Protein backbone atom coordinates (compact mmCIF):
# COMPACT_ATOMS: atom_id res chain seq x y z
CA UNK A 1 0.00 0.00 0.00
CA UNK A 2 1.43 3.35 -1.01
CA UNK A 3 1.89 5.91 1.71
CA UNK A 4 1.14 9.59 1.07
CA UNK A 5 4.21 10.90 2.90
CA UNK A 6 6.56 8.21 1.62
CA UNK A 7 5.57 8.87 -2.00
CA UNK A 8 6.48 12.56 -1.78
CA UNK A 9 9.65 11.80 0.15
CA UNK A 10 10.83 9.31 -2.47
CA UNK A 11 10.18 11.93 -5.13
CA UNK A 12 12.22 14.49 -3.19
CA UNK A 13 15.11 12.05 -2.99
CA UNK A 14 14.84 11.08 -6.66
CA UNK A 15 14.84 14.74 -7.65
CA UNK A 16 18.01 15.29 -5.62
CA UNK A 17 16.49 18.06 -3.50
CA UNK A 18 18.99 18.83 -0.74
CA UNK A 19 17.85 22.13 0.74
CA UNK A 20 14.35 22.62 2.12
CA UNK A 21 12.67 25.44 4.00
CA UNK A 22 9.32 24.97 5.66
CA UNK A 23 6.34 26.48 7.36
CA UNK A 24 4.32 23.59 8.78
CA UNK A 25 0.88 22.24 7.91
CA UNK A 26 -0.69 19.35 9.80
CA UNK A 27 -0.73 17.36 6.55
CA UNK A 28 3.03 17.81 6.20
CA UNK A 29 3.77 16.66 9.74
CA UNK A 30 5.25 13.26 8.90
CA UNK A 31 7.08 14.55 5.84
CA UNK A 32 8.72 17.28 7.91
CA UNK A 33 9.89 14.67 10.41
CA UNK A 34 11.43 12.56 7.67
CA UNK A 35 13.22 15.53 6.16
CA UNK A 36 14.49 16.61 9.55
CA UNK A 37 16.03 13.18 10.05
CA UNK A 38 17.65 13.10 6.61
CA UNK A 39 21.31 14.06 6.92
CA UNK A 40 21.57 14.72 3.17
CA UNK A 41 18.99 17.48 3.35
CA UNK A 42 19.49 20.85 5.02
CA UNK A 43 16.14 21.74 6.59
CA UNK A 44 15.49 25.31 7.69
CA UNK A 45 12.18 26.00 9.43
CA UNK A 46 11.26 29.63 8.76
CA UNK A 47 8.99 32.23 10.32
CA UNK A 48 7.22 33.13 7.08
CA UNK A 49 7.10 31.73 3.55
CA UNK A 50 8.58 34.83 1.91
CA UNK A 51 11.58 34.59 4.22
CA UNK A 52 11.94 30.94 3.22
CA UNK A 53 12.02 31.84 -0.46
CA UNK A 54 14.84 34.29 0.23
CA UNK A 55 16.80 31.59 2.07
CA UNK A 56 16.23 29.13 -0.78
CA UNK A 57 17.46 31.67 -3.33
CA UNK A 58 20.72 32.06 -1.40
CA UNK A 59 21.13 28.29 -1.19
CA UNK A 60 20.50 27.96 -4.93
CA UNK A 61 23.27 30.48 -5.63
CA UNK A 62 25.57 28.08 -3.78
CA UNK A 63 24.46 25.16 -5.95
CA UNK A 64 21.71 23.58 -3.83
CA UNK A 65 18.55 22.00 -5.20
CA UNK A 66 15.85 23.85 -3.35
CA UNK A 67 12.27 23.33 -2.22
CA UNK A 68 9.73 24.89 0.10
CA UNK A 69 7.20 22.89 2.09
CA UNK A 70 4.20 24.98 3.01
CA UNK A 71 0.45 25.34 3.21
CA UNK A 72 -1.28 27.19 0.40
CA UNK A 73 -2.39 29.85 2.89
CA UNK A 74 1.23 31.02 2.75
CA UNK A 75 1.08 31.72 -0.95
CA UNK A 76 -0.11 35.22 -0.20
CA UNK A 77 3.08 35.75 1.78
CA UNK A 78 5.15 34.56 -1.17
CA UNK A 79 3.94 36.54 -4.16
CA UNK A 80 6.50 39.33 -4.17
CA UNK A 81 9.42 36.94 -3.76
CA UNK A 82 8.07 34.70 -6.54
CA UNK A 83 7.97 37.64 -8.92
CA UNK A 84 10.63 40.17 -7.96
CA UNK A 85 13.18 37.53 -6.94
CA UNK A 86 12.43 34.20 -8.69
CA UNK A 87 10.97 35.47 -11.95
CA UNK A 88 13.42 38.37 -12.14
CA UNK A 89 16.54 36.24 -11.74
CA UNK A 90 15.10 33.05 -13.32
CA UNK A 91 15.54 30.85 -10.26
CA UNK A 92 14.13 27.31 -10.18
CA UNK A 93 12.24 26.11 -7.08
CA UNK A 94 9.98 23.23 -6.10
CA UNK A 95 6.96 24.25 -4.03
CA UNK A 96 5.44 21.28 -2.21
CA UNK A 97 2.15 22.63 -0.98
CA UNK A 98 -0.60 21.26 1.20
CA UNK A 99 -3.63 22.62 -0.60
CA UNK A 100 -6.32 23.28 1.98
CA UNK A 101 -9.74 24.77 1.48
CA UNK A 102 -10.82 22.47 -1.35
CA UNK A 103 -13.82 20.10 -1.35
CA UNK A 104 -14.05 18.35 2.02
CA UNK A 105 -12.26 21.07 4.02
CA UNK A 106 -13.71 21.20 7.54
CA UNK A 107 -12.25 24.62 8.43
CA UNK A 108 -14.12 27.49 6.82
CA UNK A 109 -11.18 29.87 7.19
CA UNK A 110 -9.21 27.80 4.68
CA UNK A 111 -11.79 28.11 1.92
CA UNK A 112 -11.11 31.58 0.43
CA UNK A 113 -7.39 31.00 -0.06
CA UNK A 114 -8.07 27.44 -1.15
CA UNK A 115 -10.19 28.76 -4.00
CA UNK A 116 -7.78 31.54 -4.89
CA UNK A 117 -4.66 29.39 -4.99
CA UNK A 118 -4.84 27.96 -8.56
CA UNK A 119 -5.87 31.38 -9.91
CA UNK A 120 -2.92 33.01 -8.21
CA UNK A 121 -0.51 30.55 -9.81
CA UNK A 122 -2.12 31.18 -13.16
CA UNK A 123 -1.79 34.91 -12.69
CA UNK A 124 1.86 34.46 -11.75
CA UNK A 125 2.52 32.29 -14.80
CA UNK A 126 3.83 29.51 -12.59
CA UNK A 127 3.19 25.89 -13.60
CA UNK A 128 1.21 24.03 -10.98
CA UNK A 129 -0.11 20.51 -10.71
CA UNK A 130 -3.01 19.42 -8.48
CA UNK A 131 -2.33 15.99 -7.04
CA UNK A 132 -5.17 14.00 -5.46
CA UNK A 133 -3.93 10.44 -5.92
CA UNK A 134 -0.96 8.91 -4.16
CA UNK A 135 0.02 6.99 -7.30
CA UNK A 136 0.77 10.30 -9.05
CA UNK A 137 2.93 11.83 -6.35
CA UNK A 138 6.34 10.19 -6.59
CA UNK A 139 6.66 10.70 -10.34
CA UNK A 140 5.48 14.31 -10.20
CA UNK A 141 7.97 15.22 -7.47
CA UNK A 142 10.82 13.21 -9.01
CA UNK A 143 10.51 15.03 -12.33
CA UNK A 144 9.90 18.46 -10.86
CA UNK A 145 13.45 19.73 -10.34
CA UNK A 146 14.66 19.04 -13.88
CA UNK A 147 11.51 20.60 -15.23
CA UNK A 148 11.87 23.66 -13.04
CA UNK A 149 15.51 24.07 -14.01
CA UNK A 150 14.73 23.87 -17.70
CA UNK A 151 11.79 26.29 -17.37
CA UNK A 152 13.98 28.54 -15.19
CA UNK A 153 11.08 29.18 -12.87
CA UNK A 154 9.32 27.65 -9.87
CA UNK A 155 6.98 24.69 -10.11
CA UNK A 156 4.15 24.17 -7.62
CA UNK A 157 2.76 20.79 -6.61
CA UNK A 158 -0.58 21.15 -4.85
CA UNK A 159 -1.41 18.15 -2.67
CA UNK A 160 -5.15 18.19 -2.24
CA UNK A 161 -6.90 17.73 1.09
CA UNK A 162 -8.08 14.32 -0.18
CA UNK A 163 -4.55 13.27 -1.03
CA UNK A 164 -3.47 12.59 2.54
Amino acid at each position, binding site marked *: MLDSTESIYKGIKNAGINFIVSVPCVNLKKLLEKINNDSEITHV*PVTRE*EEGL*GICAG*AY*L*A*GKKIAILMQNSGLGNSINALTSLYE*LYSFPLIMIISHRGTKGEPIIGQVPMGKATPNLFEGLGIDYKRIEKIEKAEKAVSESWKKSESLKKPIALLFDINYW
Partner: protein
Amino acid sequence: MERYDAIKEIAKNLTDELVIANIGFPSRELYEIKDRAENFYMLGSMGLASSIGLGLGLSQDKKVIVLDGDGSILMNLGSLVTIFNQNPSNFILIALDNSAYGSTGNQETYCKNTDLLKIAKSIGFKKAFNFKDIDFKEILSEDIEEPIFIHFKINPGNADVGIIDLTPDKIKNRFKEIVNK
Protein backbone atom coordinates in the same frame (compact mmCIF):
# COMPACT_ATOMS: atom_id res chain seq x y z
CA MET B 1 28.13 60.07 7.68
CA GLU B 2 25.73 59.01 4.96
CA ARG B 3 25.28 55.55 3.44
CA TYR B 4 27.71 56.08 0.55
CA ASP B 5 30.63 56.74 2.88
CA ALA B 6 29.56 53.91 5.18
CA ILE B 7 29.60 51.45 2.27
CA LYS B 8 32.99 52.87 1.20
CA GLU B 9 34.29 52.21 4.69
CA ILE B 10 33.04 48.61 4.51
CA ALA B 11 34.08 47.98 0.91
CA LYS B 12 37.70 49.03 1.40
CA ASN B 13 38.20 46.01 3.67
CA LEU B 14 36.65 43.42 1.36
CA THR B 15 38.72 40.59 -0.05
CA ASP B 16 36.88 37.47 -1.24
CA GLU B 17 33.75 37.83 0.92
CA LEU B 18 30.36 37.35 -0.72
CA VAL B 19 28.12 40.40 -0.38
CA ILE B 20 24.34 40.54 -0.62
CA ALA B 21 23.35 44.16 -1.23
CA ASN B 22 19.89 45.42 -0.38
CA ILE B 23 17.53 46.74 -3.05
CA GLY B 24 17.75 50.36 -4.16
CA PHE B 25 20.48 52.80 -3.23
CA PRO B 26 22.55 50.36 -1.11
CA SER B 27 23.04 48.20 -4.24
CA ARG B 28 23.53 51.19 -6.52
CA GLU B 29 26.07 52.82 -4.24
CA LEU B 30 28.02 49.60 -3.78
CA TYR B 31 27.98 49.08 -7.56
CA GLU B 32 29.59 52.49 -8.03
CA ILE B 33 32.07 52.12 -5.17
CA LYS B 34 33.28 48.59 -5.80
CA ASP B 35 31.63 46.41 -8.38
CA ARG B 36 32.80 42.80 -8.17
CA ALA B 37 31.44 39.39 -9.13
CA GLU B 38 31.13 38.60 -5.41
CA ASN B 39 28.37 41.21 -5.08
CA PHE B 40 24.78 40.09 -5.47
CA TYR B 41 22.67 43.17 -6.18
CA MET B 42 19.03 42.88 -5.24
CA LEU B 43 16.77 44.48 -7.82
CA GLY B 44 13.56 43.48 -6.05
CA SER B 45 12.14 41.58 -3.07
CA MET B 46 12.64 44.20 -0.37
CA GLY B 47 13.31 42.66 3.01
CA LEU B 48 14.96 39.47 1.83
CA ALA B 49 18.65 40.44 1.83
CA SER B 50 19.35 38.81 5.19
CA SER B 51 17.42 35.69 4.15
CA ILE B 52 19.33 35.31 0.88
CA GLY B 53 22.53 35.77 2.86
CA LEU B 54 21.48 33.12 5.37
CA GLY B 55 20.73 30.53 2.68
CA LEU B 56 24.07 31.29 1.08
CA GLY B 57 25.91 31.10 4.40
CA LEU B 58 24.39 27.74 5.29
CA SER B 59 25.27 26.26 1.88
CA GLN B 60 28.96 27.04 1.44
CA ASP B 61 32.02 28.09 3.45
CA LYS B 62 32.96 31.57 2.18
CA LYS B 63 32.12 34.50 4.43
CA VAL B 64 28.86 36.24 3.67
CA ILE B 65 28.23 39.92 4.36
CA VAL B 66 24.73 41.31 4.07
CA LEU B 67 24.36 45.05 3.56
CA ASP B 68 20.84 45.57 4.83
CA GLY B 69 18.79 48.62 5.71
CA ASP B 70 16.67 49.40 8.74
CA GLY B 71 13.42 49.57 6.76
CA SER B 72 14.15 46.23 5.14
CA ILE B 73 15.05 44.60 8.43
CA LEU B 74 11.75 45.81 9.90
CA MET B 75 9.94 44.26 6.94
CA ASN B 76 11.41 40.81 7.66
CA LEU B 77 12.13 40.92 11.38
CA GLY B 78 11.56 37.17 11.74
CA SER B 79 14.72 36.67 9.71
CA LEU B 80 16.87 37.76 12.67
CA VAL B 81 15.26 35.02 14.76
CA THR B 82 15.92 32.40 12.09
CA ILE B 83 19.52 33.54 11.60
CA PHE B 84 20.24 33.35 15.31
CA ASN B 85 18.70 29.89 15.60
CA GLN B 86 20.41 28.52 12.47
CA ASN B 87 23.70 29.89 13.78
CA PRO B 88 25.71 30.16 10.54
CA SER B 89 29.46 30.32 11.15
CA ASN B 90 30.32 32.59 8.23
CA PHE B 91 27.69 35.31 8.39
CA ILE B 92 27.84 39.05 9.05
CA LEU B 93 24.72 41.21 8.90
CA ILE B 94 25.40 44.93 8.68
CA ALA B 95 22.36 47.06 9.40
CA LEU B 96 22.91 50.40 7.69
CA ASP B 97 20.47 52.33 9.84
CA ASN B 98 19.54 55.79 8.67
CA SER B 99 16.11 55.44 10.27
CA ALA B 100 14.59 56.18 6.89
CA TYR B 101 13.23 54.52 3.76
CA GLY B 102 16.14 55.99 1.84
CA SER B 103 15.33 54.80 -1.67
CA THR B 104 11.77 56.09 -1.61
CA GLY B 105 12.32 59.62 -0.37
CA ASN B 106 13.69 59.27 3.14
CA GLN B 107 10.40 58.75 4.92
CA GLU B 108 11.12 58.07 8.60
CA THR B 109 11.16 54.48 9.88
CA TYR B 110 10.35 53.37 13.42
CA CYS B 111 14.07 52.82 13.98
CA LYS B 112 14.14 56.46 14.97
CA ASN B 113 12.84 55.25 18.33
CA THR B 114 13.47 51.52 18.22
CA ASP B 115 17.03 50.25 18.60
CA LEU B 116 17.90 47.41 16.21
CA LEU B 117 21.01 46.54 18.20
CA LYS B 118 18.90 45.94 21.30
CA ILE B 119 16.54 43.79 19.24
CA ALA B 120 19.45 41.70 17.94
CA LYS B 121 20.84 41.26 21.46
CA SER B 122 17.45 40.30 22.85
CA ILE B 123 17.03 37.66 20.11
CA GLY B 124 20.26 36.15 21.36
CA PHE B 125 23.06 37.46 19.14
CA LYS B 126 26.17 37.42 21.33
CA LYS B 127 28.24 39.19 18.71
CA ALA B 128 26.15 42.33 18.26
CA PHE B 129 28.17 45.51 17.88
CA ASN B 130 28.11 49.16 16.97
CA PHE B 131 30.25 49.69 13.89
CA LYS B 132 32.06 52.55 15.59
CA ASP B 133 33.16 50.29 18.45
CA ILE B 134 34.82 47.60 16.33
CA ASP B 135 37.77 47.07 14.05
CA PHE B 136 35.90 45.78 11.01
CA LYS B 137 39.06 44.69 9.24
CA GLU B 138 40.01 42.54 12.19
CA ILE B 139 36.55 40.97 12.32
CA LEU B 140 36.85 40.05 8.63
CA SER B 141 40.24 38.48 9.14
CA GLU B 142 39.16 36.24 12.01
CA ASP B 143 37.20 32.99 12.02
CA ILE B 144 33.53 33.67 12.60
CA GLU B 145 32.06 31.16 14.98
CA GLU B 146 28.55 32.55 15.26
CA PRO B 147 26.55 35.11 13.30
CA ILE B 148 27.59 38.73 13.76
CA PHE B 149 25.19 41.66 13.83
CA ILE B 150 26.71 45.09 13.18
CA HIS B 151 24.66 48.22 13.71
CA PHE B 152 25.94 51.07 11.55
CA LYS B 153 24.13 54.28 12.45
CA ILE B 154 24.20 56.76 9.59
CA ASN B 155 22.38 59.86 8.41
CA PRO B 156 19.77 59.74 5.65
CA GLY B 157 20.93 60.67 2.18
CA ASN B 158 21.60 59.07 -1.19
CA ALA B 159 24.63 59.59 -3.39
CA ASP B 160 24.19 60.76 -6.96
CA VAL B 161 24.74 57.36 -8.56
CA GLY B 162 23.25 55.73 -11.63
CA ILE B 163 21.17 52.61 -11.81
CA ILE B 164 22.78 49.19 -12.12
CA ASP B 165 23.21 48.44 -15.79
CA LEU B 166 23.68 44.69 -15.37
CA THR B 167 20.87 42.29 -16.25
CA PRO B 168 19.51 40.10 -13.43
CA ASP B 169 20.93 37.07 -15.29
CA LYS B 170 24.36 38.66 -15.45
CA ILE B 171 24.30 39.46 -11.73
CA LYS B 172 23.21 35.90 -10.96
CA ASN B 173 25.54 34.06 -13.32
CA ARG B 174 28.76 35.76 -12.42
CA PHE B 175 27.91 35.53 -8.71
CA LYS B 176 27.02 31.85 -8.95
CA GLU B 177 30.21 31.15 -10.84
CA ILE B 178 32.44 32.74 -8.23
CA VAL B 179 30.55 31.16 -5.31
CA ASN B 180 30.94 27.69 -6.75
CA LYS B 181 34.55 28.12 -7.89
